[in-house]
């Protein structure tokens, strides 16, 4: 039963992601991107990461997507047109070549995953043996808060400084230039 719901979510993610990259209309793609992110949040819940799912919805759907729609609307109608013209420069692969590369990556990674399946890392088997696995009844948010303030305090501070710097940089870049 669990697995069926998991695969429904996975199906939504993959079909809408394929639609996002195959549709010609950028506005439709942006709104389908929304669906992909919501379904990804659903997949996170299956790994018992409820707080990550909420953050995904808050940050991506509330922030990133609105930002993208803004950028899309501040550029003009030209974006609605089909920009897919092929040219002969390096790194401007025609569609079929990029499709080939993507499918090649998928095949290699799936092969790797199926090969890897028989050799589970020792820390995973040890943790399953000890019972140190996150379960459905654990209070993740409390644990995460404690971990952020104790064990992961330095990365937390670094990431906040980084976010501050990135946002100041973005605000500076998108400012209208005054000719001084």
């Amino acid at each position, binding site marked *: 039963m*669990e*697995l069926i719901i*998991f695969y429904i979510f*996975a199906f939504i*993610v*993959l079909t809408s*992601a394929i639609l*996002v*990259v195959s549709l010609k209309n950028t506005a439709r793609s942006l709104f389908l*991107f929304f669906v992909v992110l919501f379904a*990804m949040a659903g*997949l*996170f819940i*299956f*790994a*018992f*990461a409820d707080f*990550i799912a909420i*953050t*995904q919805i808050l*940050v991506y759907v509330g922030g*990133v997507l609105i930002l*993208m729609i*803004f*950028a899309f609307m501040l*550029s003009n109608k*030209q*974006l609605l047109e089909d*920009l*897919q*013209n092929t040219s002969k420069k390096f790194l*401007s*692969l*025609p*569609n079929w070549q*990029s*499709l080939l*590369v*993507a499918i090649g990556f*998928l095949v290699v*990674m*799936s092969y790797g*995953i199926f090969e890897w399946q028989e050799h589970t890392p020792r*820390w*995973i088997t040890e943790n399953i043996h000890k019972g*140190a*696995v*996150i379960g459905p009844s654990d209070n993740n948010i409390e*644990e*995460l808060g404690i*971990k952020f303030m104790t*064990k*992961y305090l330095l*990365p937390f501070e670094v990431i906040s400084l*980084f*976010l501050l710097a990135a946002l100041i940089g*973005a*605000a500076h*870049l*998108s400012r209208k230039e005054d000719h001084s």
Partner: protein
Amino acid sequence: MITLTHFLLVSAALFSIGLYAVLAKRNAIMILIGIEFIINAAILNLVAFGKYDKINYGGQVFALFAIVLAAASVAVGLAIILNLYRKHQTINPEQTTDLRD
């Protein structure tokens, strides 16, 4: 019972779709969306492995860090795209061949 393999397969497929978008699209916003797909696939992997790490919660903590990094990269990337559009009147990466004014 959902094992690790299911999560890994879904995220591998999402990664490939993102890679296709980055390689094939001629629109900077769509390329950014492809990068977001790749980052999301990575976050799914982090979360799936983090399920087996109750002592450190490493997977979930770094998944949160990755979400923050993705948000910052989108903010800076969109600012650059807007500037590019203002200067060159196009966001096709093919046609922006110079970096200086």
